[in-house]
């Protein structure tokens, strides 16, 4: 069971990051994407500051969605997913491992780079701690919820597509709490409630998402 989990994790990480150079790639990506906003809305520091939280969370959403389709699709196309479903390990565990690998390759780099981006968008220092904690709580949830959507589109039937789109709104609460938490911090208000809410969403997604995704995957073979 645990062996299977680690095997899955290592394998997906291998395919995600073939080498350390790929981390600098993530850095470059986030910097480029982030620098688009000042380009667009203008350099006014105050404006950027008000946007910064939103920008960083949009980047989080972006980086998650960029690699979501790769989460199951390629394994589905080349038959690996079938073999996984037939392996000794429960599919549930494998999905969990995949979600973790996905987070480690997309979410975590962002968390690590968020301070840099925050500085560039001159977010006031009071926001940093909340931003980081929020990202640490939120991005895993994004990856987990993502597994459901990614699994639902496998069948590529009309119905499954719609349900996959229904998943997207599930992102919204995470993003909203993430942003509002930072704003609260900047306004000197209490942030714990927001963060607790995010934590509880994560706690809920942790068992539910992999279970739903596993079910969707089995259905996709029919």
């Amino acid at each position, binding site marked *: 069971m645990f062996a299977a989990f680690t095997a899955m994790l290592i394998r997906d990480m291998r395919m995600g990051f073939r080498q350390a150079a790929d981390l600098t790639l993530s850095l470059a990506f986030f910097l*480029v994407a982030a620098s688009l906003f000042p380009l667009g809305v203008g350099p006014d520091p105050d404006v950027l500051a008000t946007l910064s939280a939103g920008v960083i969370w949009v980047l989080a959403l972006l980086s998650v969605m960029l690699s979501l389709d790769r989460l199951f699709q390629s394994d589905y196309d080349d038959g690996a997913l079938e073999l996984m479903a037939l392996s000794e390990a429960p599919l549930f565990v494998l999905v969990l491992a995949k979600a973790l690998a996905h987070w480690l390759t997309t979410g975590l780099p962002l968390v690590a780079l968020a301070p840099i981006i925050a500085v560039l968008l001159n977010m006031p220092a009071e926001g940093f701690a909340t931003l980081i904690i929020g990202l640490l709580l939120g991005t895993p949830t994004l990856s987990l919820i993502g597994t459901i959507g990614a699994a639902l589109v496998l069948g590529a039937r009309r119905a499954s597509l719609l349900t996959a789109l229904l998943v997207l709104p599930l992102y919204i609460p995470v993003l909203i709490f993430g942003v509002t938490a930072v704003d609260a911090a900047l306004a000197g208000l209490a942030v714990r409630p927001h963060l607790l809410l995010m934590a509880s969403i994560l706690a809920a997604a942790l068992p539910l998402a992999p279970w739903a995704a596993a079910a969707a995957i089995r259905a996709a073979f029919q």
Partner: protein
Amino acid sequence: MHRFANPTRFLRISNAVLPFAAIGTVILVLLGLYYGLWNSPADYQQGDTVRIMYIHVPSAYMAVMVYGIIATCSASLLIWKHPLAELIARASAPVGLAFTFLCLATGSIWGKPMWGTWWVWDARLTSVLIMFFLYAGYMALSNAFDEPGRGNKPAAILALVGVVNLPIIKFSVDWWNTLHQPASIIRLDGPSIAAEMLTPLFLMMGAFTTFYLTLLALRLRSEIAAARLRNAMMTGQVEA
């Protein structure tokens, strides 16, 4: 089979150049610093901050020039499959990236006192930033493949696409009314800078150029060594 053209001759040349370039760099830098820091007037309105120019402008010129070199090499790689072009281009990229960064850094340091802000999104600055990203993309792309030489062609194509950025960098100051200085050295009606400022400026430009040559020669050594090894093995097999 000039894909395997043995670059010995080229290597000999670059080895010959290396010491001169290295020594030249040292001398020019020393002279440049002397003139730049002591033997030149402070600007009547900018004060001593003007001395940043002696780093900023040369690095800017180098950044632009090195990109031009990479683009030229890329073209000759795609058209004539010339093996050296590929080596030079790959060896130049990091150097160019460094110069571009230096230009951006000194620029924004200079911008703080001059414009009251580290950064403005005007055409000159933005186009240089784009060049910085292009350098980064070029390096990322050429290393993004498992197979040794596989990244060269894609990277070359990218470099050529990026050429459209060069004229924008050069002429942005004339096309758009920007905060940034218009060309004051390379002008039809001659430089419009005090001669005392020109001396250190040109010295530093010389220094930066020889510095680039030095780095290039050094990097080419290793690149060629590796390529040689590969070619020797392949050709050895082909003849066997």
